């Protein structure tokens, strides 16, 4: 297996992109990534498109986007892993390069959610679990699935709705500095507390928005990467796991009773093992993290699932503001899904875009000095969840090449 590095990154403006079709939106990120790597579309040897789909008109987004981005006739495919779709696309692209099949892969996450009306999207996302057993008769929604976890966490660890609000306040704070974010305003705990319930105990401001957006990464084999850039960002580990479709069947291997995501723990341990990071106190090996905060409770559980702290201790990190920049582990300095926006299939590549910029110490140019993490260990982690722990992908990035034999 060959080592694989990220040599170019691009990111569209996130939000309600009524101005563009899906292929035009994909190009916004792809063109930026090509310029970042000083490469042309013809240099790409394969295109992996992460697009969850359903709400946009095009049934073959990989074809439509490849055509628009000028990569034809190179091979392409669409990858799906719900909200972890483009992290799964990165896993596929990584293996295409590591195996020696190709040297350069364009990895494109894109989602155009606003091609369908808002109620249709609520219906679609609510069906993202086990359709027959949990939606057909019981009308679950995506906020509902996470609300089940919030309730359990409250019952077990004394979580308060105000604690969750603090996570939203942090992520809106960083989004307000990020010109590519959907939400650009700071909010207060009161804003969250006064918003209406969507799925008790989660309120509107505990939830991420519906977003159109794209983010692109160019992955290269070691020899090629060194010719393209002086600051390749290496993929040191990729962990992947699948949770039960039925929420009622969770805890197959780990008894969390809805206060954490079993799949995320599995994926984190796998990625850390590849990268030589110990799971307990993982934060001390990392400079910065992007975690899957589709809902505030999801970010809280991520702290624990990623081994930043013990079970029930995520609350302490929130209350002590340890996940702001300068704390134990800065989390979601780009505003996260919560406030930067969550274009389902583009979220994974968006996380890795931000972390690549962080490791290259270029993020300050986008989100301001305050949002540039101090890079000491040269390592970052992306935690991307599909559905409610139905899929989990954890990716470790580093300024250092993987240790010999782990790549």
């Amino acid at each position: 297996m060959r080592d694989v590095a990220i040599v170019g990154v691009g990111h569209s403006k996130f939000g309600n992109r009524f101005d563009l079709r899906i292929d035009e939106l994909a190009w916004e990120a792809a063109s930026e990534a090509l310029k970042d790597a000083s490469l042309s579309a013809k240099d790409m040897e394969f295109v992996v498109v992460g697009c969850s789909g359903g709400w946009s008109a095009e049934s073959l987004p990989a074809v439509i986007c490849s055509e628009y981005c000028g990569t034809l006739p190179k091979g392409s495919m669409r990858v799906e892993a719900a909200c972890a779709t483009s992290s799964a696309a990165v896993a596929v692209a990584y293996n295409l390069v590591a195996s020696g099949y190709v040297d350069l892969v364009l990895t494109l996450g894109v989602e155009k959610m606003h091609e369908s009306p808002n109620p249709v999207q609520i219906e679609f996302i609510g069906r993202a679990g086990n359709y027959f057993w949990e939606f057909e008769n019981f009308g679950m929604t995506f906020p509902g699935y996470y609300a089940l976890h919030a309730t359990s966490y409250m019952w077990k660890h004394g979580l308060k709705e105000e604690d969750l609000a603090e996570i939203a306040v942090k992520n809106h704070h960083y989004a307000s500095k990020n010109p590519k974010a959907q939400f650009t305003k700071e909010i207060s705990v009161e804003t969250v507390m006064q918003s209406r319930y969507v799925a008790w105990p989660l309120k509107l401001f505990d939830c991420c928005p519906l977003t159109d957006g794209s983010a692109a990464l160019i992955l290269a084999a070691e020899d090629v990467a060194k010719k393209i850039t002086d600051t390749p960002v290496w993929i040191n580990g990729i962990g992947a796991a699948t949770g039960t479709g039925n929420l009622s069947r969770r805890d197959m291997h780990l008894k969390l009773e809805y206060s954490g995501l079993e799949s995320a723990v599995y994926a984190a341990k796998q990625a850390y093992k590849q990268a030589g990071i110990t799971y307990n106190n993982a934060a001390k090996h990392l400079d910065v993290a992007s975690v899957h905060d589709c809902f505030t409770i999801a970010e809280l559980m991520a702290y624990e699932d990623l081994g930043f702290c013990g079970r029930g201790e995520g609350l302490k990190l929130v209350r002590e503001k340890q996940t702001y920049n300068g704390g134990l582990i800065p989390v979601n300095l780009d505003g996260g899904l919560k406030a930067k926006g969550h274009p389902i299939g583009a979220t994974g590549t968006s996380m890795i875009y931000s972390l690549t910029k962080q490791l290259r110490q270029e993020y300050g140019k986008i989100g301001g000095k305050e949002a540039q993490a101090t890079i000491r260990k040269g390592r970052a982690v992306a935690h991307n969840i599909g559905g409610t722990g139905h899929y989990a992908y954890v990716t470790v990035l580093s300024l250092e090449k993987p240790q010999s034999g782990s790549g």
Partner: protein
Amino acid sequence: MPELPENVKQNIREEGLPIVLEPKTRLPLYISVRELSLRYQFGTTKIQKFFEGLKEGRIYMTQCKKCGQKFFPPQGDCPICIESDVRWIPLNGEGELLTCTMILVKPPTYAHHDNYIVGIAKMKEGVRVLAWLKIDDPKKIKPKMKVRLETVKREPEQFITYEFTPI
């Protein structure tokens, strides 16, 4: 074919194109003249006994005769043994509530229902079940509270399903 919205029909009449201005951003939007409606269908052959049970007021789980693995939702195949020989066992109905939520923003196909509470309970037999919890006052919900699982006719659709009530 379903009717197009009036403003789209008007623009086709007047301008010859189904392009309207998006209300908030005033950006031009092409409204597709094709509308898709979808109703899915599923095979029930392997678990038909479950549905026969609902008609008789029973809620069945299955258990692999070889390894003893219990399944709810019920299934006819055991992936552990790669066997398809399962026992059908009716749940006795007693359970303990592990978590719950109240759904206030509902999917369009549930818009005609009042806000509903969804809970997950651990049943006496060891399996967990997700279903609606019918309770007069949500404030009465307590962690680990005892609940009973029963079949019920869902109104206004009138099909048989199952739900929890407090014991």
